[in-house]
């Protein structure tokens, strides 16, 4: 019971401070789930992201459900899902009921220009950690760089990258050393 409640609180916090798309939850995930709670390792977070990218729905929600399920089966999955959507539910309801579109206010625009930079700095810092842990051998570096180019430069759908890398991993299973 206590652990279910911690799942709810942790993902509520993560949902509340994740601005922008799915992967921008990574810095909060590393802090709350990996460092503070020890519910997953850096590498496992990447596994969850890979599956979440291919499953229907928002990546942040899928990742929350995954962590919750690994920790406390179906009740854990439900609590984590609730935690991650609750901030949206509360904030958007307030906006819909009272505020209308506040995004045009100059002060709000400037504040979010600042927040975007923080989000960017946090993702860079998370990336440094991930690269140190998961991208070390020559094969791993090639996979990471290729995946970046395919999505960021060529503008292809990330799902192709995930499927391609999964196939590569399957065919080289046992031959390329996996890191824990």
């Amino acid at each position, binding site marked *: 019971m206590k652990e279910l409640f911690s799942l709810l609180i942790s993902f509520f916090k993560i*949902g509340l*401070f994740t601005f922008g798309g799915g*992967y*921008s939850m990574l810095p*909060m995930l590393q802090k709350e789930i990996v460092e503070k709670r020890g519910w997953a390792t850096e*590498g496992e977070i*990447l596994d969850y992201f*890979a*599956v979440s*990218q*291919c*499953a*229907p729905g928002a990546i942040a*929600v*899928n990742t929350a459900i995954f962590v919750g399920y690994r920790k406390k089966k179906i009740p854990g*999955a439900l609590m984590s*899902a609730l935690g*991650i*959507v609750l901030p*949206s539910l509360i*904030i*958007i*309801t307030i*906006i*819909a009921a009272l505020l209308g579109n*506040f995004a045009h206010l100059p*002060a709000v625009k*400037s*504040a*979010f*220009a*600042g*927040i*975007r*930079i*923080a*989000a960017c*700095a*946090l*993702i*860079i*810092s*998370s990336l*440094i950690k*991930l*690269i140190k842990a998961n991208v070390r051998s020559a094969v791993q570096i090639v996979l*990471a760089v*290729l*995946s*970046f180019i395919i999505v*960021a430069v060529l503008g292809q759908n*990330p799902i192709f990258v*995930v499927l391609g*890398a999964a196939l590569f*991993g*399957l065919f*080289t299973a046992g031959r390329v*050393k*996996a*890191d824990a």
Partner: protein
Amino acid sequence: MPELLVLCWEFFKTGLFAVGGGLAALPFLSRMSDAHPDWFTQEMLADMIAVSESTPGPIAINMATYVGYTVSGIFGAILATFSMILPSIIIVVIVAGILEKYISNKYVNGVFSGLRPAVTGLIAAAGYSVLKVSVMITDVPFSLSAPFAAFDWRAVLLLAVLVFFTQFKYTKKIHPVAYIAVSAVIGVLIF
């Protein structure tokens, strides 16, 4: 069919077929607006994208809450949001259950050993797109004759300082929330 049921069904479908993150839901939402013009207009959808950039949470979830609220108040908001995430819950739980069984299998391990570096690349790509919108001036196109004109130098400087803090021995334990709060204040002051 009563309207609330239609609402649930529409968002359940969106949750089921929008694969690849929040933005993948946009075409579905756009079609939903054509089918139910009394729920929300294309214009409101555009507004909502702007609101979603400035509020936490995935855009599809925000949109479900918003539309649910306009259709049927707080109850509608809750209903639409949970219809939207129901497919995720079912599918991710099934996948997680299967993976748990085979996690020590040599081939499953092989798959993930290929996926980890690739997903790191995907996150780098996501970081790169955030980098572009946060330090570049959108209405100045990048050109080789004046390669620095497209950058907002205040933003570049702030970014450099923040990245330094995340790596520096005495400040690297600072919580991400602190970065977001401080940067919001700095944003109001300098932009």
